[in-house]
């Protein structure tokens, strides 16, 4: 038995429009190991938010799962959640096995009832005795550095950072194995961001959550917390690799461009200076033939325009989709 919590195999998820489809997640395979943080990065519109929806099987029209398998480990065996309906996954997995911290987590709490009441409703939804669950909520609030007295308040009485911490506390109340954080820090100032990341890591360290998927376009944040980085471009995985290696020596030209366009205090990046990637991401209704990055790629070869590169292991633990690292180039 491998130690992966989730296996994603050749998943295709498209937005079905009237006569065409948007290939937001196109033939993606990777594994989420137990006890790791994966940072998913990419430009806006590269499909990273769609990916987080697909992982949860939160598939609502016009999004449709076209092909592929999603396996989730529960009680020692893998369950194929991609064969279940959204409602079934919602009933058996959401909250309990996998939880979500949405974008703009500050507004994630029901605004017109007290937080305590919300926790009670949550207990109700999962048939847990209310007093027991409230006690747990109090402990969890202390863990995220919030006085449990705030449970008796309304969300709008808390500051932005406090709300964010309350959201983590509530999202992890049912001890989910997987926590998906979809750009949760974009609305926070740096101090609160730091605090948020610290708490997130603390949750993992204490084994409250096993693995975390952190979706963001903020590479500096990923650098601080992730074990592996997954780079997406136009619905495809370009590179997936341990964070140190990818920062030290990005392989895929897109990853190189992405890292070069970020200002970070790391000496190895500082040396390179800042550059931008020319051009704009492609339209996902009609993506370019071959490698989707080839029109913007400085190293584009003939084969890149014809064939799609596969995601291949080039070093132990490092996978890249690029013909530069394949014998197939001609």
């Amino acid at each position, binding site marked *: 038995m491998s130690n992966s919590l989730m296996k994603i195999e050749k998943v295709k998820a498209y937005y079905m429009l009237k006569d065409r489809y948007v290939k937001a997640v196109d033939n993606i395979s990777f594994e989420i190991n137990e006890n790791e943080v994966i940072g998913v990065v990419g430009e806006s519109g590269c499909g990273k938010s769609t990916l987080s929806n697909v992982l949860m099987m939160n598939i609502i029209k016009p999004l449709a799962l076209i092909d592929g398998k999603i396996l989730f480990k529960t009680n020692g065996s893998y369950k194929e959640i991609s064969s279940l309906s959204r409602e079934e996954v*919602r009933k058996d997995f959401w909250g309990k096995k996998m*939880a979500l911290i*949405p974008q703009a987590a500050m507004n994630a709490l029901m605004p017109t009832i007290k937080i305590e009441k919300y926790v009670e*409703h949550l207990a109700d939804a999962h048939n847990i005795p209310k007093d027991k669950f409230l006690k747990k909520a109090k402990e969890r609030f202390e863990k995220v550095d919030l006085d449990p007295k705030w449970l008796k308040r309304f969300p709008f009485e808390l500051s932005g950072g406090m709300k964010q911490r309350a959201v983590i506390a509530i999202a992890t109340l049912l001890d989910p194995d997987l926590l998906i954080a979809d750009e949760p820090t974009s609305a926070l100032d740096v101090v609160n961001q730091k605090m948020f990341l610290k708490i997130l890591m603390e949750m993992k360290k204490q084994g409250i959550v096993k693995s975390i998927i952190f979706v963001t376009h903020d590479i500096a944040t990923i650098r601080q917390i992730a074990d592996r980085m997954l780079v997406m471009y136009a619905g495809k995985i370009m590179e997936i690799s341990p964070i140190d290696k990818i920062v030290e020596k990005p392989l895929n030209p897109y990853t190189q461009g992405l890292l070069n366009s970020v200002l970070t205090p790391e000496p190895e990046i500082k040396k390179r200076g800042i550059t931008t990637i020319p051009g704009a991401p492609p339209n996902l209704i009609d993506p370019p033939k071959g490698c989707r990055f080839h029109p913007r790629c400085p190293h584009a070869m003939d084969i890149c325009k014809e064939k799609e590169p596969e995601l291949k292991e080039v070093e132990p633990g490092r996978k890249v989709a690029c013909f530069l690292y394949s014998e197939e180039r001609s």
Partner: protein
Amino acid sequence: MISKQMWKYIFRKLIFLIITYIIATTIVFLLPRIIPGNPLSQMLASLSQVAQANPEAIRAAEKNLMEEFGFGKPWYVQYFEFVSNALRGNLGTSVAYYPRKVLDLIIPVLPWTLLLLLPATIVAWFLGNSLGAWAGFRRNTWIDKGVLTTSLIVSQIPYYWLGMILIYFFGVRLGILPVGGAYTQGNFPSFSWNFFVDVLKHYILPFSSIVISAMGGWAIGMRLMVIYELGNDYVRFSEALGMKDKRIYKYVFRNSMLPQITGLALSLGGALGGALITEIVFNYPGTGFLLFKALTTLDYPLIQGVFVILIASIYLANFIVDFIYALIDPRIRLGQEE
């Protein structure tokens, strides 16, 4: 239990209400006086027939009347007399119904208006919002499309035209409901079963005309609010935590209702104007009908009197709504502190 903040909130609202009430009544005092014409002319005209056209006598009568109503005095003197009299519960004497007191004219008709206006507005609000929420939760289904289209059409129908259609169809063609009035002529108000049924029969048409025409607007607004709220982060978060749809709908309904409650308070005021025409169409003996009479005869004291009472009742309704709003939305109640 009413908290300290709640008392503070109520106190603020009361002060605000008193100030706006003073402003509103002042405007009501001034506006009719801007309309050109002499309120006594009609009265003098009828007097002249009785008094065999004796110019001396008529001039004397006009002088007396001017003295009695105080119309000859400067407007600010009139205003302070009006206020000080009003505070003592005296709204003056009607010109058109001379020598009857304004208050005696209003009190018997006021219940009819309130009886028509308040339930119709509230029922329209309630039905419209339920319908809108129902459609919103089933966005893009045929239910939603049906409700939206019907609401759009119905909300554009003028209520008086709808009233006339209803009268024509149910009153004239089918003849099953009376065409106007609040009760059958000659049937004196009493607390008997017969009178109750009679009133109810007269009530159905004006009531339905207000409810039907007001409902559509509420439904459209509520549908939009629900759809907007459904896209909020708390909905996604609650779903992802495994909350049931029923609970999430309750949250969404609650939050969508808040602006609709403010809307209700406003529409109670707006319904006043609508009631005037509805009452004329249905020949319904309410304040609107009385006001119509007062306006056409330029009966200053009666116009003032009707408005003073009506504004007071609308404000009272507003105050109650504000109070309910604060109970439901903690942000209003507690937000005052910050």
